């Protein structure tokens, strides 16, 4: 058989879609066909619902899906975080059991990493797993977990060895969420929404074979998951964009999208809504105020420059050039923009910032911006951690001396968790 080319793949996938894609199928029936055909995840290995294609040919397949308007495999943390980690670190049994239901949307997943006592220092986690016969017994608490209340599985990091330095005593587990020892409670945020959960483990059980990678090597596995966190948002964006068609599959798809996106409905406000600034200044009669004008100009300069910086990083990647500093700055930039935007909105709204909800400017939207913006500089790596990364990895500045290096984690001072 000859090597596939962009042309031959385009032909093949288009023909397959022509024969099989039918928006009147149930979403699940369609997704099962898709998973078994390998076209849903074309760059995955053939043995695991893929076709073993290169990234370039994978793009050709994705384009064909877009051209046809066909719905793809289920997006979300199952695909974006769990599946990629299982593919890289799971044994064949786990791959066989877990991957396909992620693609079809039957199983959803949540990420059980952060803890009340370990935020920036994730490897300092203290949720414990103790082996009892053929099962691991889990005790501890996780926090900031999206979808923990309805996910079937969790990606769980827990400490299995306290006598070695912190990174070496962690194991990565696949835990079933629906069991007596696992309790998820909604966590209300300062902006009033409850998009995340706290998860309490009290003698929860994990079968011995549900370890991803090896016992004590979970940190390396976790890095795989974390490396894919950034791309998660891209998948979600494409999902919203591609859900506009007609037919039974689309009706079901829109429900799925709405449920997946539910926790993120304040995220646009969190990012600062820079799109509203000029309009607001006009509406409030502040557009001629030189102080307001300077503030708006500064903000819009930041927004444009940051877009161009992202595009510079992308252009360098496409050309295969070594990554420059421009690629590491995005997270911090988003945070700066959000903060600056909230300030400009407050400047424009004046005493309006004292009111929220139906009494507040734009029916509470401005208030929502102000009380959501603080999340940006904390979630997904605080600004301080970002600055450490930029300072150390990009600028090559020396690390701050740490006091827990080389010490058994048992002997390292920790937070008291109630």
């Amino acid at each position, binding site marked *: 058989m000859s090597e596939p080319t962009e042309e031959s793949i385009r032909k093949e996938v288009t023909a397959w879609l022509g024969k099989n894609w039918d928006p009147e199928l149930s979403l699940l029936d369609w997704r099962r066909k898709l998973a078994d055909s390998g076209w849903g995840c074309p760059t995955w290995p053939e043995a695991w619902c893929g076709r073993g294609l290169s990234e370039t040919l994978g793009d050709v397949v994705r384009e064909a899906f877009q051209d046809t308007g066909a719905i793809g495999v289920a997006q979300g943390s199952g695909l974006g975080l769990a599946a990629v980690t299982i593919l890289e670190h799971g044994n064949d049994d786990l791959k066989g059991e877990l991957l396909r239901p992620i693609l079809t949307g039957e199983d959803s997943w949540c990420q059980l990493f952060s803890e009340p006592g370990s935020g920036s220092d994730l490897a300092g986690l203290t949720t414990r797993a103790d082996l009892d016969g053929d099962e691991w017994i889990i005790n501890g608490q996780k926090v900031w977990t999206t979808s923990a209340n309805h996910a079937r599985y969790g990606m769980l990091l827990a400490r299995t060895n306290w006598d070695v330095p912190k990174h070496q005593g962690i194991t990565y587990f696949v835990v079933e969420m629906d069991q007596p020892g696992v309790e998820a409670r909604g966590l209300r945020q300062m902006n009033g929404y409850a998009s995340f959960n706290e998860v309490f483990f009290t003698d929860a059980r994990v079968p011995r074979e549900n370890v991803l990678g090896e016992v004590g090597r979970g940190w390396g596995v976790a890095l795989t998951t974390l490396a894919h966190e950034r791309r998660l948002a891209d998948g979600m964006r494409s999902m919203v964009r591609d859900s506009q068609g007609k037919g039974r599959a689309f009706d079901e798809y829109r429900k799925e999208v709405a449920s997946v996106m539910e926790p993120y409905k304040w995220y646009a406000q969190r990012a600062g809504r820079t799109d509203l600034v*000029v309009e607001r200044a006009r509406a409030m009669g502040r*557009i001629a105020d*030189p102080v307001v*004008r*300077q503030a*708006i*100009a*500064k903000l*819009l*300069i*930041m927004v*444009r*420059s*940051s877009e*161009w*910086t992202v*595009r*510079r990083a*992308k*252009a*360098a990647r496409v*050309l295969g*050039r070594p990554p420059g*500093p*421009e690629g590491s*700055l995005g997270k*911090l*930039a988003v945070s*700066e923009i959000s903060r600056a935007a909230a300030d400009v909105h407050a400047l424009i709204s004046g005493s309006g910032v004292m009111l929220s909800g139906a009494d507040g400017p734009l029916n509470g939207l401005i208030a929502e911006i102000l009380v959501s913006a603080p999340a940006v500089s904390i979630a997904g790596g605080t600004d*301080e951690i*970002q*600055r*450490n990364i*930029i*300072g*150390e990895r*990009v*600028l*090559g*500045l*020396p*690390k*701050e*001396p740490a006091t827990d290096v080389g010490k058994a984690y048992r002997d390292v001072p920790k937070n008291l968790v109630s």
Partner: protein
Amino acid sequence: MEFSFSDEQEEFRRTVRRFLEDTSSPDEVRRLMESDEGFDRSAWAKLSGSLGLTGIAIPEKYGGQGFGFVELALTLEEMGRSLLCAPYFASTVCAANAILNAGTPAQKKRLLPGIAAGDTIATLAIAETAGIWNADAITLTATRVDGSFQLDGIKSFVVDGHTADCIVVVAREAGSHGSDGLSFFVVSGGAEGLSRRLLTSLDPTRKLAELTFKGAHGDLLGELGAGADPLSRTLDQAVVALANEMIGGAQKVLETAVEYAKVRMQFGRAIGSFQAIKHRCADLLLELEHAKSAAYYAAAAAAEDDEELPALACLAKASCSDVYRRVASASIQIHGGVGFTWENDTHLYFKRARSSEAFMGSQDYHREQLLQRWGI
């Protein structure tokens, strides 16, 4: 719009950088900044001759290399990095573009080859004693006397105006206002009725002069009274070039601060390991990369003659002005006491930064212009 430099452009950058490392070392910068002339004629000849930098973006039919604005901007960035002391910005950026924008084909043929070859050093006189670079601020008058023009008034902040062989002057018809009645004129550096005074500048690496015209003879460049459009276009281009020059200096001064933070030991550790220093450097890098994106994007817009150029020029200048000042100030702070000494080079960049942010309009001015040009 391209978001990366081509391999050829990167190679060109390396060539320019190597040349400037040889010819514009810190010692050489210090020697030249103390001199009145402010540049070295033999270095200028090399820069013009073997490298052809003086004609880089001048069309081939006018004796130049025929490259675009991106190559020009890249050259400026490298010159800013090395604080090159030379009339390059005055001659190749300001005067040559003014002639290209305002002149007739015959005038371009006559004036540009000398500038492209580096034989003629030219400059552009716009601002007056008020230090404002726009049409409204021009008061110097041109009066027609027996078929030629006599110029009267004072131009100031003229870069390399004391050494230029050829001065392009923006003047207005007496009694006209704003954008009306503006014309470009070419005046010889040694013209009768022109007196030139070297000003003491905060940034000694960029020489500024005050030029007093008392009935000096000027040759009309282009069409009489039609100077407003070429003026604003020339300013946009000059501002973009300046922004790119600033980004080169800002990059260098940040690199120096970071390197110092790696080797300076206090309390038994390199000061760069303290988050107080590390985080400041990270923030500066973010701002610098943003400003760099703005400067590069504006240069690409100038190269493609994009309709957004007037807005982008303001955006880039505002952004680069803020960043260069902040980086230079922070670099002095990170260097500590040694950063306040004459011997340390940081103050040279600090002075260039402070002076460049005011040159051709401050960041506040450009932010206001930006909104107006965006129709806000």
